């Protein structure tokens, strides 16, 4: 269990004081895959660095399994960090060391596993886990970005950590490689029960692997909850911006005398009736689909759609009532320039 309690971080810069985090409180359960999402500058990288005390919070506390990280001595903190390892956007491998030596690196640091042969064997197992056993002797410069991140993951797992912090770990990778790295993190989480904390600005990272999500906006937690819940009913402005990235573009293109409805799919079965077609056939309501973004997560639909109705106020009210009568679907009016 990672408890972040009222963490505030203020940086002193030449231009004055900058508050990166303001009174942030989160709790991340053991074994979870937890996403922390926000635009750049939202403070998410600072927040993840406060978890392992690479950045000391200005005030507040980070408590991991009952241990107050801020109260540890430098030496105790170094030992604790073996349980909370990290992977990075830039992979950060040792460029003058081959893959095997990179994976051995944390074992050498720990000094516990003194025996070189044992270290190498453990490193080979880990490289095998991430699918790179054949690259043990290769140097990082000879690998692709995705392969480098796999080596970094193997390295992060070497000390058998309880928590894996991922700081924009897939942001430098293409979509296919991103998916394979996320799949690897998910499978490691399922197999070992490691708690994974994913810092990202990409919605698809959160929707594809995370169970819970915190939305960070301007150094403040805007919203937290289960991923499906936040996707279906984004409450905060920051969450709406992330879930409906094109939401604001609608009002500009709105036709006069058109009523706009936002339909939210809140986990309705993907295989259920074709909603818009039925509305047209049963009620004679002609809906103009001006925007749609839905995703299927575990066989259920999540997302939203914007419908334009030009048949007047009464029909528009009827459409909202019809849509709201469907299971796991909700509808609301979108006011112009809202």
């Amino acid at each position, binding site marked *: 269990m990672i408890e972040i309690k009222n963490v505030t971080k203020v940086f002193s810069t030449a231009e004055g004081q900058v508050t990166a985090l303001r009174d942030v409180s989160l709790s991340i359960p053991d074994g979870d895959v937890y996403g922390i999402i926000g635009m750049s500058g939202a403070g998410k990288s600072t927040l993840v660095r406060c978890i392992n005390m*690479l950045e000391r919070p200005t005030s507040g506390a980070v408590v991991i399994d009952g241990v107050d990280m801020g109260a540890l001595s430098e030496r105790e*903190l*170094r030992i604790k960090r*073996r349980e909370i390892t990290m992977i990075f956007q830039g992979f950060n491998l*040792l460029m*003058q060391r081959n893959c095997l030596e990179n994976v051995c690196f944390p074992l050498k*640091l720990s000094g516990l596993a003194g025996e070189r042969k044992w270290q190498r064997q453990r490193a080979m197992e880990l490289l095998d886990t991430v699918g790179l056993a054949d690259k043990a002797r290769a140097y990082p410069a*000879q690998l692709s970005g995705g392969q480098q991140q796999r080596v970094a993951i193997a390295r992060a797992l070497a000390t058998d950590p309880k928590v894996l912090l991922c700081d924009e770990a897939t942001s430098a990778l293409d979509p296919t490689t991103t998916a394979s790295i996320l799949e690897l993190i998910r499978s490691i989480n399922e197999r070992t029960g490691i708690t994974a904390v994913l810092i990202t600005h990409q919605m698809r990272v959160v929707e594809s692997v995370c169970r819970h999500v915190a939305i960070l906006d301007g150094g403040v937690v805007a919203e937290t909850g289960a991923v499906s819940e936040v996707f279906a009913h984004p409450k905060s402005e920051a969450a709406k911006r992330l879930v409906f990235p094109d939401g604001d573009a609608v009002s500009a293109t709105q036709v006069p005398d058109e009523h706009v409805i936002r339909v939210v799919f809140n986990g309705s079965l993907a295989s259920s009736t074709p909603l818009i077609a039925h509305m047209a056939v049963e009620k004679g309501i002609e809906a103009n689909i001006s925007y749609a973004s839905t995703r299927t997560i575990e066989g259920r639909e999540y997302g939203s759609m914007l419908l334009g109705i030009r048949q007047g106020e009464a029909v528009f009210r009827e459409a909202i009532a019809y849509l709201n009568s469907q299971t796991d679907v909700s509808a609301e009016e979108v006011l112009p320039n809202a």
Partner: protein
Amino acid sequence: MLEQVFAQEVLQEAWDIIRTQFPLAIWETVYVTILSTAFAIVLGLPLGVILVVGEKGGVRPLPAGLMRTLNVIVNLLRSVPFLILMVLVFPLTRLLVGTVVGTVASIVPLVIAAFPFIARLAEGSLREVNPNTIEMAQSLGASPFQIIIRVMLPESVPSLISNATIAITTILGYSAMSGIIGGGGLGKIAMNYGYYRYKYLIMVAAVVLLILLVQLFQTLGTRFAVKSDKRLKNK
């Protein structure tokens, strides 16, 4: 003039001197250079490490006063011309070697002149290490000492070798200058025959050999630096 320089007996005399004196002179130059560089690295490399890790925001910040003092010392030693420095360190040379003249004695001022230079070169190499790599090591629980030994130094090896090559060729040049205070080697021969006795051929031969030595060290150094760098793919 040219006829004088290339006259039969002049050539013969020059050849005799080259034959009898140059092998020892080359040997003296090489060992003074290598020994001085080695001592200077022993002093300069740790100093360079301290200059990087000890500053504010470094891996192991040291008191600001100490850092300022170290920087001033390095700058002071680097700004004294080598000719003056050789004379200035006479007391130290006498203390360490027992005499102020001779080949061994010339190592002392060479080391004193070279180690602050090497400290600055090492400082430059170590600053090239990606700060993200250092942060990675910290996130895995590395101590400041482990970061120096296992990250900063190994990661900057190619750059350190390049800079060591610059250092060794510079020290070779200084060692030639130490011929003035009785240091041995090619510098002494160039001074004694060329400058004091107007034997230009001998001087030219000594200078050519110094150039060849610089070329040799530089070529070897560059080759090692490139060979050691694992960031280069096509090898």
